[in-house]
């Protein structure tokens, strides 16, 4: 039996109702599962929202949690995928004193080496943007720290699963099944 903890992305499609996020998060809370990151946005279907939640847990526990999420009335469908079944991305922003760039060429070199880009340059500060896995955004963070990093933020990850069935098709299935008496 597989009892190793592993990272999973849970994707949840819901009606856009007040309180649904609370309903979902309590399901994690009561099983003592820490949410590593969470992102919410409108999905490809108008009025239907998509949550992307990343957890590190045993497969079986995640499967049960996903079923309990799907059981919520306003949830259409919930999926979970291990890392090798998704393409994922995170975004990080770094605020540096603009001075750091004029003092030395090092900072610019670092930015280039990491394939990051400058998002905004102001007399006082410069914002750097980097997309990538956590290890990558963290590596840039570690290097910039020495040059007076002022502020740092990393987004939750968003991901798209590799299997080809579209949510639209699931949606049709759920809507059809919801008519069953």
């Amino acid at each position, binding site marked *: 039996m597989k009892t190793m903890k592993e990272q999973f992305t849970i994707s949840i499609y819901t009606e856009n109702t007040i*309180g649904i996020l609370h309903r979902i998060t*309590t399901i994690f809370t009561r099983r003592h599962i820490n949410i590593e990151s969470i992102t919410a946005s409108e999905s490809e279907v108008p009025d239907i929202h998509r949550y992307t939640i990343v957890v590190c847990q045993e497969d079986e526990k995640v499967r049960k949690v996903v*079923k309990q999420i799907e059981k919520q*009335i306003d949830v259409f469908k919930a999926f979970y995928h291990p890392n090798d079944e998704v393409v994922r991305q995170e975004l990080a922003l770094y605020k540096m004193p603009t001075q750091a760039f004029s003092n030395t060429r090092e900072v610019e070199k670092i930015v280039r080496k990491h394939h990051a880009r400058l998002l905004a340059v102001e007399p006082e500060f410069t914002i750097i943007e980097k997309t990538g896995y956590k290890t990558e955004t963290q590596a840039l963070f570690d290097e910039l720290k020495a040059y007076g990093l002022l502020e740092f933020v990393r987004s939750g990850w968003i991901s798209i699963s590799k299997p080809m069935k579209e949510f639209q098709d699931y949606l049709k299935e759920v809507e059809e099944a919801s008519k*069953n*008496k």
Partner: protein
Amino acid sequence: MKTVAVEKQDEKQAEQFCSGAHALVKALIHEGVDTIFGYPGGAIMPVYDALYDFEGKIKHHMSRHEQGATHAAQGYARQSGKPGVCLATSGPGATNLITGLADAQLDSTPLVCITGQVPSQMIGTDAFQETDVVSISMAVTKWNVQVTKAEDIPAAIAKAFYIAKSGKPGPVLVDITKDAQFGKCPDTYERCDQVRSYIAKPKIDPLAIEQAAQAIAEAKKPLVLFGHGVLLANAKDEFREFIEKSGMPAAWTILGLSALATDHPQNVGMLGMHGNYAPNKLTNECDLLIAVGMRFDDRVTGDVTRYAKQAKVIHIEIDPAEIDKNVKADIPILGDCREALQRLIPHLQRKDYQDWYATFSALDAEEQEQVIQRDLFPDESAPLSMGEVIRHLSDISKGSAVLVTDVGQHQMVAQRYYRFGEWNSNITSGGLGTMGFALPAAIGAKLAAPHRQVVAVIGDGGFQMTLQELGMIMEAGIAVKILILNNQFLGMVRQWQDMFFEKRYSSVDMSNPDFLMIAKAYGIEGQQVSERADLEKAMHTFLSHPKSYLLEVMVGKEDNIFPMIPSGAAVDEIRLK
């Protein structure tokens, strides 16, 4: 200036509008509600005012505490099969509903609770009697919603009823701000029969039916476990046919009890912690386990890692989240269990399980000798036992009463020894184990089934949790029978202290009031019995009394309930002493 015609039209339109509170009451009437339970207060006053206009149509029973209203509504729902309805005010009124909601959530009972809320512009300001009941109740409701506009009330109520009663039933809560109750809304109502994100009844997979039929055909030692789902799906005839056509033995969970008559020859008894010896032991010996509308609660399975490992498991269940949650199903049948049974029945062939039944009988004989005989027919020198009280209750009521049990030793005894003859006649708090459930739930059950004998069986501890609801009985003259089995202890907890805490009795000894005087204060007659010689006659009086009646029986103080699966033990480690 308006012409006469325009004024007429305005008037007509005005007629088609009503207040949010009126819309709510009318919605209830549209849903076929004629009995509700509740308690008034500031934030729900417009609804109570509207009720005044519909007095002949909806009967409101005022509980003496909102928890009592929820349990009464549960008893009503469990007996009638219709959603129970509760009203409460904001703040403390709303928070008092939580225990009942949790109980209904765990026992899949359809409830529609309506709470008043402070006016919408005051929400979030810590206004007087404001609590965020939507957040508080989220974990204990199937669905909930807050309504802040009058025109949204009818649709919210329609959705609430649909969700409460469809699929796996459960409690829902609709929180309505006071301004929405006062506001104007169109006087129309449309019932809800679909929520697009919610699959109430999964379509049954024909392949699963075939596989199940084959597994049943191949089994030599099958065991059917039946739960609440059979009752909820109204599968009375289907279940009996399923059992009788196949010849398989069937055992019950406490929520499935009375879905098959206790004396049915294929009924092999009760599962779980204080269940019967044979079905528990043989759960770990059968070759096929067929779970029908039950969810493998830990009180049924004991140590789940040592539960029925040798058996193939068929699980008939409407809730996908229950499949593989506690016990892995080899053949899951996802769907309504009535429909599933209907489809399985044509495949069945009666088989002879004589040897298999013989193993049940052998174990039954052991339990009979070591436990049952003594419980039902104690020595003359022994104090009265709970078992013999229930035996008399069962005999004299001919197994035809609705039993509503509280939580503790008396609950286990009542369910073990009452010979249920009629469908859907056992109402108990199973999943949550809520002391104080029985009295108000019995009131609700009696209102739902006025022509049936309804008996609440309660411990001396649990009675004191909700005894204020005697007020409801007094007010409406509800002929509920109240049987208190008084062991002067919080018996079940004392038993655990006896068995697992070296008899260190900590806070279980009860100082009890005079229960008969309390009943009398509410105009309810009663008597106390402490001698064996008086019991039978008292039971006749109790059952034949035309009104509510309280019978208090003084039973052995330190009797323990057996058999027992100690917590953490496997089902086949069940102990007879």
